[in-house]
């Protein structure tokens, strides 16, 4: 007893069982989020210690209905248990009291893999209300594993039963799963006379069910199967026969479970309140349901744009003050300039979007937690289908209005690989928050501040039109891709409709945190890196650049208002702008806008600060100053004003379509595991941007 033990336990359960809540309850904030090799599904682990000093490491795996995965998230569970299983000592299965039968299918599958298993039946606080009775001791005896009733929701409130939702008891029970030898049932299912007979002798030491899963799900493992289990990957594979066997297996398992539950689980159906069904009658109503959905979305966006401006202004001001302060205290040299203009400006450019992204994911995860997102999927599926999208594509498309990076990642829950791919490829068209500052300044410049029909603000209307343009282009591209991309699998729609419930603050907080982190560290590091490179290109240059300081009158002669702007023209970046000038001339742009287009590759909103520097507006916070300066700017190619209505519309279209975000491309690469799609998206979007901008300028000038 004296020696300290360590166990590594995997936490597995169906979606909507409160598995993550339970994980959070068990581990508190002692958790670590990493990545699975090759894919970017979060690998969350946490730690806690038992009363006798035993250390437990808990791994939270994505929710899954079975070990036959239908989505990228679910594949993680299978791979973790089959290929990477060395580390895992046992499995804690979380089940939902309302759905015990279905949850036990997964439990039985895991048992057959030879793992010691413990069952935690969650949401036990709802049992009385729903007329459910469970004979825990008998269930434990029949399943041959430790079983406990817990509640991740109730802490102290419902104290009459056993204090803190029995979380502590549950922890202490974990070592019991190692006391009895683990039982396997699959061998007795009588699925003999089939392929299973060939598999068993190949690796006699492994549990048969593990070999069976490796064989039936072999397309999920790729090279790993060939190197670790070559004999299995060489076997012939008859998809239809295997499917029949898998169905037989499920039936066998249900029979088993029905027998067990008959003795242990009793439900008095007259106690059911049907509250969820009654709410659904309103929220899923043919007409009202759609209205309510639109109203909720409208309120969410309204809230985001009115609330986020406050912290955004605060971030903006704090960082420019920090930079101003650093410039006064640090020596005036290259290093200080790199720190302030490159690094800190880059970080500020990332953080400025955090308020909007936080708020959007706050609302999305609140709706998800309460069970409403599944209803959105239900309502929207049929509308999205003609475009090759699923109802589940609504989440990435909505998230895309904040930032495409977490949005593309959220497409992982889409089972059908074709629908998932199309969702990811069209999400970058959605108007993300980095486009807004560009839209704002150009609209203010070229669209008159006028009311249409007495009450519709024309500038607001144009902004709305740009959002609509983004959304409709996404749908249109999806429609085209749907015709081109071939699908291996037939599309089908199966969706669980979870019970409505009040959101758990901690879960919402953690989801928001995960998404914001994905943005800050995923997109953020690329944005900062680009800012530094661009800073270098803008502050270094050839001979003329280096001699700029010596010849004080030169810059005034060449029409520059100050040295800064003269230096920028002769920097490497300025030279690049001039190089691309012939290409962007048909769009109505000169090399100055060309520089801004190039710097936009760090993040689109850098367009604004670049123009401020080029047009020698000292204070970048002062939009009015920049706007006045831009209004008077003359294009040296035409001799006319640069920012006419035609150039403005051309720029708006260019920013609406162009793929100017390297972070998005990198995320696409991560999610599709190939550069093929990011490259296609880049050329498609940028090509469309170029053509539409040319057309707009040439028609309107």
């Amino acid at each position, binding site marked *: 007893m004296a020696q300290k033990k360590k166990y590594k336990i995997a936490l597995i359960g169906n979606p909507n069982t409160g598995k993550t809540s339970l994980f959070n309850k068990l581990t508190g904030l002692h958790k670590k989020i990493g990545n699975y090799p090759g894919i970017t599904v979060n690998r969350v682990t946490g730690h806690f210690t038992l009363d006798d000093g035993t250390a437990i490491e808990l791994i939270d795996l994505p929710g899954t*209905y079975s070990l*036959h995965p239908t989505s990228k998230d679910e594949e993680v569970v299978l791979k973790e248990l089959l290929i990477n299983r060395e580390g895992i000592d046992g499995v804690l299965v979380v089940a939902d009291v309302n759905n*015990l039968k*279905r949850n036990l299918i997964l439990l039985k599958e895991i048992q057959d893999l030879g793992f010691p298993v413990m069952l935690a039946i969650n949401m036990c606080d709802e049992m009385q209300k729903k007329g459910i009775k469970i004979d825990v001791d008998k269930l434990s005896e029949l399943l041959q594993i430790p079983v406990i009733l817990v509640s991740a929701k109730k802490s102290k409130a419902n104290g009459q039963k056993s204090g803190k939702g029995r979380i502590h008891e549950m922890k202490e029970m974990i070592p019991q799963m190692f006391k009895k030898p683990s039982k396997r049932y699959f061998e007795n299912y009588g699925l003999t006379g089939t392929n299973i007979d060939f598999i068993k002798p190949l690796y006699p030491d492994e549990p048969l069910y593990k070999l069976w899963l490796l064989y039936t799900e072999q397309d999920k493992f790729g090279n790993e199967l060939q190197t670790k289990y070559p004999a299995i990957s060489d076997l012939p594979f008859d998809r239809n026969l295997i499917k029949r066997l898998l169905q037989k297996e499920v039936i066998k398992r249900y029979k088993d479970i029905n027998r067990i539950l008959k003795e242990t689980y009793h439900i008095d159906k007259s106690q059911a309140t049907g509250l969820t069904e009654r709410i*659904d009658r309103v929220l899923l109503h*043919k007409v009202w*349901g759609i209205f309510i959905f639109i109203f909720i979305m409208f309120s969410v966006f309204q809230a985001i744009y009115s609330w986020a401006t406050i912290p955004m202004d605060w971030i903006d001001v704090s960082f420019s003050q920090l930079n101003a302060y650093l410039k006064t205290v640090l020596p005036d040299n290259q290093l200080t300039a790199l720190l302030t203009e490159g690094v800190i400006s880059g970080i500020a450019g990332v953080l400025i979007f955090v308020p909007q992204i936080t708020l959007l994911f706050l609302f999305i995860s609140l709706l998800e937690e309460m069970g409403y997102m599944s209803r959105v999927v239900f309502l929207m599926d049929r509308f999205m289908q003609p475009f090759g999208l699923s109802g589940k594509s609504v989440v990435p498309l909505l998230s895309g209005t904040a930032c495409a990076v977490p949005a593309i990642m959220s497409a992982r829950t889409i089972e059908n690989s074709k629908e998932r791919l199309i969702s990811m490829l069209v999400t970058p068209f959605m108007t993300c928050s980095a486009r807004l500052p560009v839209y704002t300044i150009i609209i203010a410049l070229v669209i008159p501040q006028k009311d249409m029909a007495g009450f519709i603000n024309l500038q607001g209307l144009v902004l709305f039109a740009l959002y609509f343009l983004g959304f409709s282009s996404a749908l249109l591209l999806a429609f085209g891709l749907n015709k081109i991309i071939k699908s291996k699998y037939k599309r089908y*729609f199966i969706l*669980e409709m979870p019970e409505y419930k009040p959101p758990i603050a901690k879960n919402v907080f953690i989801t928001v945190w995960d998404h914001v982190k994905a943005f800050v560290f995923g997109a953020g590091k690329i944005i900062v890196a680009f800012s530094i490179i661009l800073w270098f290109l803008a502050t270094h240059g050839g001979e003329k650049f280096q001699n700029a300081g010596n010849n004080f009158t030169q810059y005034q002669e060449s029409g520059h208002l100050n040295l800064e702007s003269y230096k920028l023209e002769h920097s490497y970046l300025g030279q690049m702008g001039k190089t691309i000038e012939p290409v962007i001339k048909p769009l109505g742009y000169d090399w100055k806008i060309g520089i801004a287009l190039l710097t936009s590759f760090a993040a689109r909103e850098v367009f604004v600060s670049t123009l401020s520097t080029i047009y020698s507006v000292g204070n970048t916070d002062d939009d009015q100053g920049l706007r006045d300066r831009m209004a008077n700017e003359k294009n040296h190619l035409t001799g006319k004003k640069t920012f006419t209505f035609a150039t403005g519309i051309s720029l708006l279209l260019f920013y609406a379509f162009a793929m100017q975000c390297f972070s998005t491309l990198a995320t696409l690469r991560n999610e599709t595991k190939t550069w093929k799609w990011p490259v296609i998206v880049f050329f498609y979007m940028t090509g469309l941007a170029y053509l539409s901008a040319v057309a707009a300028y040439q028609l309107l000038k």
Partner: protein
Amino acid sequence: MKLKDLKKHQKAVIVNCQEKQLPLKLMEMGCVDGVEVTLINKAPLGTPLYFIIGDSRIALGKEIVNEIDVEPVKNGAEKKV
């Protein structure tokens, strides 16, 4: 009778589900022969349909509700009350 033909709040029992080439996930979610289904709601454009199947609330798309056979339960609901 197919699953798609159910009327709102009508009860039925799933039959012949095993012989069909249906997604395995459907069976894993509890949609097997002999299980009781009730139609709760239809989406605005007709599908998906939203059922209570056994103990679960599940929405199913057109391609599935067109396939699954059911036998309506006659007056089953009245007896229980």
